[in-house]
């Protein structure tokens, strides 16, 4: 059922088996699962059913960094604080993380997850229908788009995103949650702090407030923070009455290792035009079982390892004639060996060229100094506002540029095309934007010395507190995070149910 906190009296105490903080992709997926299993769930959502400025402004704070400069609007523009959360403005791109994203790499600090891709694979399968996409067994041949660019190349492969409608979780699951007996969605209820026992070993209650100042409590056997990659850390940091550095922050790791995917406008690409091949890389042109998919170029895992490169994806967008860069037509003639293409495909459409912009979405390393902390300013509820310092380092920049050069090399070596790079060491970050993917601030690690949550997403040292969402990602890979967020939430639902059954919560 849906309940508005406006009707709750001051000092009231609401109870449930599980309290979930945040009604976005993670929180809703989790609540549905737990509710279906008969657990009573209180899903505590700050906003209402529609966007409200007053609630959104609770997100305001300071933001700066390598790419951000001084752009504090990042904190309010990159996420949404109402039922459905940031699925209310996401673009629907779904793809699992790659196996190498979970692995430890000796040449990288802070690499490796305590779980592997195989551990998450069954939950990716289950997450697909939750997100409104087809199962992730996409076969290019089925859609008639094979072969593709740089086929059988050792450096790059074509991988596919599945494109959700995009599904707005608040709209899609509202009726189901309204009808659910076990789930209460509490709207306009803001968690202002978690209150723990004297050892900071168990959460005792959530201190909640309405925007009019009315305070009340939520008590549960288990608590899950699902408020997003920035807010999860903020809630732990402000819960400092027992642990002065914040709940679960005995090792000063909460809020550190913040990551987003740097999105770099690398330049342009000139290729022979080949309708089937290039339609693979265009949004909305390729479908499988009624669902849209889209190809992107991904750097091969072997090359990542041998060249010490971060994971990255290259997105091609066709340019209109008016947008063509200088010498594009000239270089296109130079670039292409149609004879080679004829060998590789029975269906080249020789005689014209494809010109596209080349965008890279790259992994970044988790840097300890890239972090969120608490500022001195307070929001309308008296909660300290966030200060974000999103940092990128020379290693991130070098990986992006070297990967771009690898694309240049492979296309040229196979007479497939030419690339125009409009960035270099000096200018790269000026051509880079953010992806609104907030990751890493409560990172997952086997032990408390390296992370905030364990492999089950339980906060180290706090028996009945879990975290859902991309804040648990210890590394971020290059895929958009929502698919993994939902897969992890479904996995967490199982772990949490088992913990409740076994009396371990």
């Amino acid at each position, binding site marked *: 059922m849906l309940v508005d906190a406006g009707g709750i009296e001051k000092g009231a105490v609401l109870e449930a088996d599980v309290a979930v903080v945040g009604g976005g992709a993670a929180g809703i997926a989790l609540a549905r699962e737990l509710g279906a299993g008969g657990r009573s769930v209180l899903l505590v959502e700050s906003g209402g059913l529609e966007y409200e400025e007053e609630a959104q402004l609770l997100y305001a704070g300071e933001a700066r960094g390598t790419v951000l400069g001084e752009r504090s609007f990042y904190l309010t523009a990159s996420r949404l604080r109402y039922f459905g959360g940031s699925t209310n403005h996401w673009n629907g791109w779904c793809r699992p993380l790659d196996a190498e994203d979970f692995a430890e790499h000796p040449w990288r600090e802070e690499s490796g997850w305590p779980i592997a891709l195989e551990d998450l694979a069954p939950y990716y399968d289950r997450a697909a229908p939750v997100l409104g996409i087809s199962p992730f067994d996409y076969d290019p041949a089925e859609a008639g788009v094979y072969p593709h660019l740089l086929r059988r190349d050792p450096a790059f492969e074509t991988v596919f995103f599945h494109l959700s409608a995009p599904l707005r979780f608040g709209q899609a699951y509202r009726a189901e949650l309204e009808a659910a007996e076990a789930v209460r969605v509490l709207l306009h209820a803001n968690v202002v702090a978690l209150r723990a026992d004297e050892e900071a070993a168990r959460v005792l209650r959530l201190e909640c407030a309405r925007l009019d100042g009315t305070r009340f409590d939520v008590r549960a056997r288990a608590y899950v923070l699902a408020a997003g990659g920035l807010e999860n850390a903020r809630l732990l940091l402000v819960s400092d009455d027992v642990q002065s550095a914040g709940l679960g922050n005995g090792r000063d790791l909460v809020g550190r290792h913040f990551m987003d995917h740097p999105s770099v406008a690398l330049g342009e690409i000139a290729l022979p035009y080949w309708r089937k091949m290039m339609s693979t890389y265009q949004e909305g042109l390729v479908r499988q079982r009624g669902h849209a998919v889209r190809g992107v170029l991904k750097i091969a895992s072997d090359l990542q390892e041998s060249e010490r490169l971060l994971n990255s994806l290259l997105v091609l967008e066709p340019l209109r004639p008016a947008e063509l860069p200088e010498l594009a037509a000239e270089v296109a003639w130079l670039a292409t*060996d149609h004879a080679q293409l004829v060998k590789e495909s029975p269906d080249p459409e020789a005689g014209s060229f494809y010109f596209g912009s080349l965008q890279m979405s790259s992994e970044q390393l988790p840097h300890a100094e890239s972090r969120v902390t608490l500022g001195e300013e307070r929001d309308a509820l008296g909660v300290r506002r966030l200060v974000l310092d999103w940092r990128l380092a020379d290693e991130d920049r070098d990986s992006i540029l070297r990967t771009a050069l690898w694309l240049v090399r492979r296309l040229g070596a196979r007479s497939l095309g030419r*690339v125009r790079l409009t960035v270099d060491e000096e200018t790269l970050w000026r051509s880079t934007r953010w992806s609104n993917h907030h990751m890493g601030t409560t990172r997952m690690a086997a032990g408390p010395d390296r992370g905030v949550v364990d492999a089950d997403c339980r906060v180290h040292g706090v028996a009945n507190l879990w975290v859902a969402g991309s804040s648990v990602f210890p590394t971020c890979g290059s895929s958009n995070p929502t698919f993994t967020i939902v897969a992890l939430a479904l996995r967490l639902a199982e772990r949490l149910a088992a913990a409740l059954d076994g009396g371990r919560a």
Partner: protein
Amino acid sequence: MSALDRRELLRLLAAVVATPAWLEACGGGPDPAAVRATLAPGQPRWDRYRAVGERVLDERVVETRPRALARALAETLSWEPGTTVEAASERLLAAVRTEFAEGNVVAAAGWQLARTEARVLALLAAEPAARA
């Protein structure tokens, strides 16, 4: 463009850049005047290549003097008296591919070109005889 046009163009380029300066540098080779006769003056393709070459020269990403360009190319393509145009064009193709594979690239207007490819285009733009 037909399937083999690029090879044909490269063949012609390999021949036409064998301008007097090049021939002098390596002591012989096909008669550039005869090869140029196979190209229609002012052909758009030709102008396209030369436009890139002029940018290469402007940005000085390879040698700019015709003789130095010719020497470098003669060395890369193993050009010597008796080298056929066909053989030179095959070597040019192979050199371009190898240079890309090895990352031996230079940039003109941001476009990433194999070094030998850039030299050919620069020589084409620089050598007055090739403009005839």
